[in-house]
């Protein structure tokens, strides 16, 4: 029984294998052994060739995947940028205060309120009150879906600050859900004047306007009467 291997030109072939492996390790994936002899070593040579094939495939695939991931990452970063931009826009847009009548300001609030937004809203409103000299401000929260403790507290603060400036603040459009939340949270809104709809609030504001106008006229009248006497 022969124990020797049947290999022709073993030294050259092993050198060839070493060469190919070195080339592949250096990054050239096209190198193959491609031995044409059929003997005990040819199986190993074929296996090495196969392994190099598999490795090439694997490398190509991972490169493709890395590219995909990078593409997605840049897309996400872009989206992030858009979101930040939109948030800033929203903060700017979210609290328009407009004068709708003599002495009457309206602040329509739409969307969910958070602390930051309410803070900006409050500052805007107070500044506008001072700038225009309006004594009635209507805070319409028809477009607000929910309210939590903090936001309710902020609303309260807004109304109180407006009062300190010398303006009256009316809250209109409190939805059933908000009314329930507020009462469940135990927040006392009784010190604040609330109206069902923006229309009611407007009517109230007009009446208030008329009342103070009448009072002023009467005052002038009585003053001139005194002078006549």
């Amino acid at each position, binding site marked *: 029984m022969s124990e020797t291997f049947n290999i022709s030109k073993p030294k050259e072939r092993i050198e060839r294998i070493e060469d190919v492996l070195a080339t592949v390790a250096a990054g050239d994936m096209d190198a193959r052994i491609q031995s044409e002899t059929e003997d005990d070593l040819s199986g190993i040579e074929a296996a090495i060739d196969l392994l190099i094939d598999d490795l090439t495939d694997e490398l190509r695939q991972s490169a493709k995947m890395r590219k995909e991931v990078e593409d997605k990452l840049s897309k996400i970063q872009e989206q992030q940028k858009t979101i930040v931009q939109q948030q800033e826009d929203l903060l700017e847009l979210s609290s328009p205060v407009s004068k709708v009548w003599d002495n009457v300001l309206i602040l329509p609030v739409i969307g969910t309120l958070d602390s930051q937004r309410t803070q900006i809203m*409050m*500052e805007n409103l*107070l*500044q506008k*009150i*001072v700038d225009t*000299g309006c*004594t009635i401000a209507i805070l319409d929260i028809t477009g607000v879906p929910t309210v939590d403790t903090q936001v309710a507290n902020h609303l309260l*603060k807004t109304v*109180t*600050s*407006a*009062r*300190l*400036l*010398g*303006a009256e603040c009316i809250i209109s459009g409190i939805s059933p859900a908000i009314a329930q939340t507020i009462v469940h949270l135990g927040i006392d809104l009784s010190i604040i004047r609330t109206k069902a709809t923006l229309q009611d609030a407007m009517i109230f504001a007009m009446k208030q306007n008329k009342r*103070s106008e009448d*009072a*002023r006229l009467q*005052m002038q009248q009585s003053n001139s009467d005194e002078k006549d006497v």
Partner: protein
Amino acid sequence: MNTEIHDKRIPIIRIKDFLIVSIQVDMHDKLAIQLQSQILNEIEKTGAKGVLIDISVLEMVDSFIGRMLSGMASMASIMDAAVVIVGMQPAVAITLVELGLEMPGVDTALNMEKGMEMLENRIKEQDIDF
């Protein structure tokens, strides 16, 4: 330093039945206490029916000044004089509310004119009640 504070008295002007106090300097605690007693003395002396306190140039208010203002309003009202604080700045209002000084008993107005109107109305209402 001490004499400086004493020198800076805040003028109290009397027009008809009203006293007009325009705070145009930064308020120190000492000045605030002094102003409080000054106004109350003036109310007694002149028999004024209303006090207008203009704080439109006051940019900063601490809890002490806030309490002093609301305290003054209640003191004056038991001396039969209505107090109206006019021209508060938004930042001051926010500060006071954040400090929890909502000044429930104090009347406020946007400017001197509206404050004056308010006082006149108040006094007239009292006349009618009488």
